[in-house]
């Protein structure tokens, strides 16, 4: 069954975006404000299944990147756009603030550099007296000697933002095609023909936002992509909500070799992330967690924090950063390929920068070549489905009276009702898989990790999609959950 937002094979577009991560979805949303036919392609079974799904979830304020870089420019701009963006998209945005914790004189000097840079960029920050810092964050380790605070640093749920962006794009007429790995690209007569697992599509402009696969995609049209992907894995622990022990994001002092280091991050849902490490990987798609990687996380978090309740971990995960051999974001038209734009190497602070990256790509790279007109009818906001545990008792009762499924709790850890799961399945770009439901409305995200609710979610998915439970998958095609019926 074809959804209204899926393209017809052979269809022609103005812009095809390869990769539905935060970069691709943000761009699809912003482009959907123009009179342009847009196609968003992704090789996975759901949108934003790569780096956007597995990262530190931080809207960095923008003090970290060096002057004169795209990262520096776009991080600051992007961070300033995020709060209103999340309001427009009805996505969670939590300004936790960040502490950078220095241990000893050498590191304190580095804080001064960061402070000066932040001041130049007009990013709010201040040194916090140690006594106050320790009363705010009693878990700071004894070795911490100085703390620089960035009160505007925030956390979001990156997957939610990407999904909401894609929904806005769809609402304005963009087409989205999943499970559509691009296998070849031909360039002729000013048009790009994309061969995909879901048929061929043609576009005047192609944006390569393929994350870790950006080099492979670029090589489909040129022998000289101008960059080489060198992805690095990051592994994390997720702690139970009841084990929350920090209020701010706690960073060590960043270093050239180790990047931002091992952090503690309070998430928008009240869990805490501990990680990441940073290891080069061969397999760009599905990194597992590793003994050494998690050991590195455990060994290093102790530098800034003490009594870290790692025994309250409910999950570990790994993500792959789309790092390349070039230190900055790559936002440029490919050499000799008019209208083929690489948006690559979008590693940290890519998430924070993404609203500004999207503007940059449109204003500097797309519009000068393709003068799309604004679409006065485009709606750039999204109405999110109801989330019952964020509502007042009166609101919940009104909803349950209308639809009793909102009163039937399926996930006890996160208090998710059947009505919310059904909404997540029926919405545009709705859930088709157990993990898809989990990413949208959280059953399985809690302490039991789906032990109780997964069978119920499988049942609801099968009913709503009108298929057998045997056809329901966890995530990708082939990730079946049930082997066979037991007579």
């Amino acid at each position, binding site marked *: 069954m074809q959804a209204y937002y899926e393209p017809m094979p052979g269809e022609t577009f103005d812009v095809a975006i390869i990769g539905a991560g935060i970069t691709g979805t943000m761009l699809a949303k912003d482009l959907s404000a123009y009179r342009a036919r847009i196609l968003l392609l992704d090789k996975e079974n759901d949108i934003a299944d790569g780096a956007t799904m597995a990262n530190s979830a931080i809207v960095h304020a923008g003090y970290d990147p060096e002057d004169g870089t795209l990262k520096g420019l776009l991080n600051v701009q992007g961070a300033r756009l995020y709060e209103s963006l999340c309001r427009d998209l009805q996505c969670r945005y939590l300004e936790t603030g960040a502490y950078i914790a220095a241990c000893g004189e050498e590191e304190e000097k580095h804080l001064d550099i960061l402070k000066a840079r932040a001041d130049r960029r007009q990013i709010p920050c201040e040194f916090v007296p140690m006594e106050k810092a320790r009363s705010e964050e009693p878990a700071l380790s004894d070795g911490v000697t100085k703390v620089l605070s960035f009160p505007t640093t925030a956390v979001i749920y990156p997957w939610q933002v990407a999904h909401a962006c894609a929904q806005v794009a769809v609402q304005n007429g963009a087409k989205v095609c999943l499970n559509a790995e691009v296998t070849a690209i031909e360039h002729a007569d000013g048009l790009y023909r994309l061969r995909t697992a879901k048929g061929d599509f043609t576009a005047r402009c192609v944006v390569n936002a393929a994350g870790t696969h950006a080099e492979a995609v670029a090589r489909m049209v040129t022998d000289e992509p101008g960059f080489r992907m060198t992805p690095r894995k990051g592994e994390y622990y997720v702690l139970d909500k009841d084990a929350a022990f920090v209020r701010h994001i706690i960073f060590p002092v960043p270093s050239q070799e180790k990047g931002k280091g091992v952090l503690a991050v309070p998430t928008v849902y009240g869990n805490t992330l501990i990680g990441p490490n940073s290891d080069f990987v061969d397999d760009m798609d599905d990194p597992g967690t590793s003994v050494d990687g998690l050991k590195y996380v455990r060994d290093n978090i102790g530098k800034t924090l003490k009594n870290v309740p790692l025994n309250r971990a409910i999950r570990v995960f790994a993500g792959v950063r789309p790092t390349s051999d070039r230190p900055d974001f790559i936002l440029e038209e490919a050499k000799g390929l008019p209208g083929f734009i690489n948006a690559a190497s979008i590693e940290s602070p890519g998430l924070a920068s993404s609203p500004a990256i999207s503007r940059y790509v449109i204003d500097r790279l797309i519009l000068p070549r393709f003068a799309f007109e604004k679409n006065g009818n485009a709606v750039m906001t999204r109405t999110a489905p109801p989330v019952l545990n964020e509502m007042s008792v009166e609101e919940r009762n009104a909803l349950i009276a209308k639809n009793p499924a909102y*009163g039937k709790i399926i996930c006890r850890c996160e*208090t998710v009702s059947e009505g919310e799961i059904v909404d997540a399945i029926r919405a545009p770009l709705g859930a088709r898989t157990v993990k898809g439901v989990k990413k949208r409305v959280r059953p399985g995200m809690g*302490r039991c990790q789906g*032990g109780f609710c997964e*069978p119920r979610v499988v049942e609801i998915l099968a009913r709503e999609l009108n298929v057998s439970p045997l056809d329901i998958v966890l995530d990708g095609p082939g990730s079946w959950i049930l082997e066979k019926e037991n007579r």
Partner: protein
Amino acid sequence: MNKKHYEAVVIGGGSAGLSAAIELKKQGVSNIVILEKDGEPGGILEQCIHNGFGLQTFREQLSGPAYAERYIRMAQEAGVEIKLNAMVTKLTSDRRIEYVSAQEGVVDVTADAVILAVGCYERPRGAVNIMGPRCAGVYTAGQAQKYLNMEGYLVGERVFILGSGDIGLIMARRMTLEGAKVLGVAELMPYSNGLPRNMKQCLEDFDIPLYLSHTVTKTYGKERLKALEIQQVDENRRPIPGTEKRFEVDTLLLSVGLIPENHLADACGILMDRATRGPVVDDRYMTSAEGIFACGNGLHVHDLVDFVSLQAARAGEGAARYLRRGSARGESVRVMPGANVGYAVPSVLYPQDAEGDVEVFFRVQKPMDNVSLTLTCGGDTLKSLKKKKMIPSEMERIVLKKDMIAGLSGSVTLSAEEMTK
């Protein structure tokens, strides 16, 4: 908005909640209700279709649902009201409860006494460091049990099990009987965590190998599990390089521990026991919050449902006593786990208000032979018992006589030590 008041509200309609409610009725507390989140009472028993329940209580071997059925009938006969599909979303220390149901919406009730009978959950994969991609094919044993016994689906055909907990052992047998091939069970510890009868009836009788001091260290397969690797561990439970064994399986079941479901208790500030991960309770099963009681696997994980029923009845009795005459009076005495004892429940006694004997439930931390079990207070030995054999998978009991309790002060320590021959 709906507001209702009860003398007692029991949260959870599984084996513990049913037994506690029946006892409340017996004790003359009439205005009570059980709030059960599922569509039927009985809790986890409903998916435990194997035999072996009720030997202590009914002197016969029943299946889980049959055992539950007896208690459900007793509850009905006693006139216990059970609200189904009623999920408790909030509890405060002054005993206000919010629950949600499709029929009634969001409902606030108050109660003079609350009994937590909320059960436990299985330690999930994330709490176990298995390396590899997050593919399908990894289930907790109870999840696979639910798919098979409640929904009628087999989750896989070639199975490996991590952890020798009882549900894992039961599922080894169950899946074998349904035609799956169970290639082995790995247990991190040098001894089994399951009951001896399950080791015999579920593994030995089916020639399923048990790998003690082994753990699963790696999984393979991007979408669905294709294979896994186990490794032997050293005395610090660290994998020993070179001991890798590979199994081609599509399914991994985890049976690596049960954790009391305690977020309601946590959220209202109830004092928790770090060892049991359930609330600290006194000899009436009252928690640190006045009028809030706890029992069942939400209090501490039991080995047999019979003991769940037994202890829950005592919690019901304790709540009834509280409703008649308030909380216990006088100074408290803590029962501390000493050498080789993991925990003791209940762990708070009131000597000046002792009404009868108190049975303390506990587990030892390692298998031991020729054990001397002693209860000491200050330097004095209050009680000493000899036990031939003690193992962590079996819950043990020791009775403290009323007269003995009346003379206590400070704390008592329960220790178990192997006697040298």
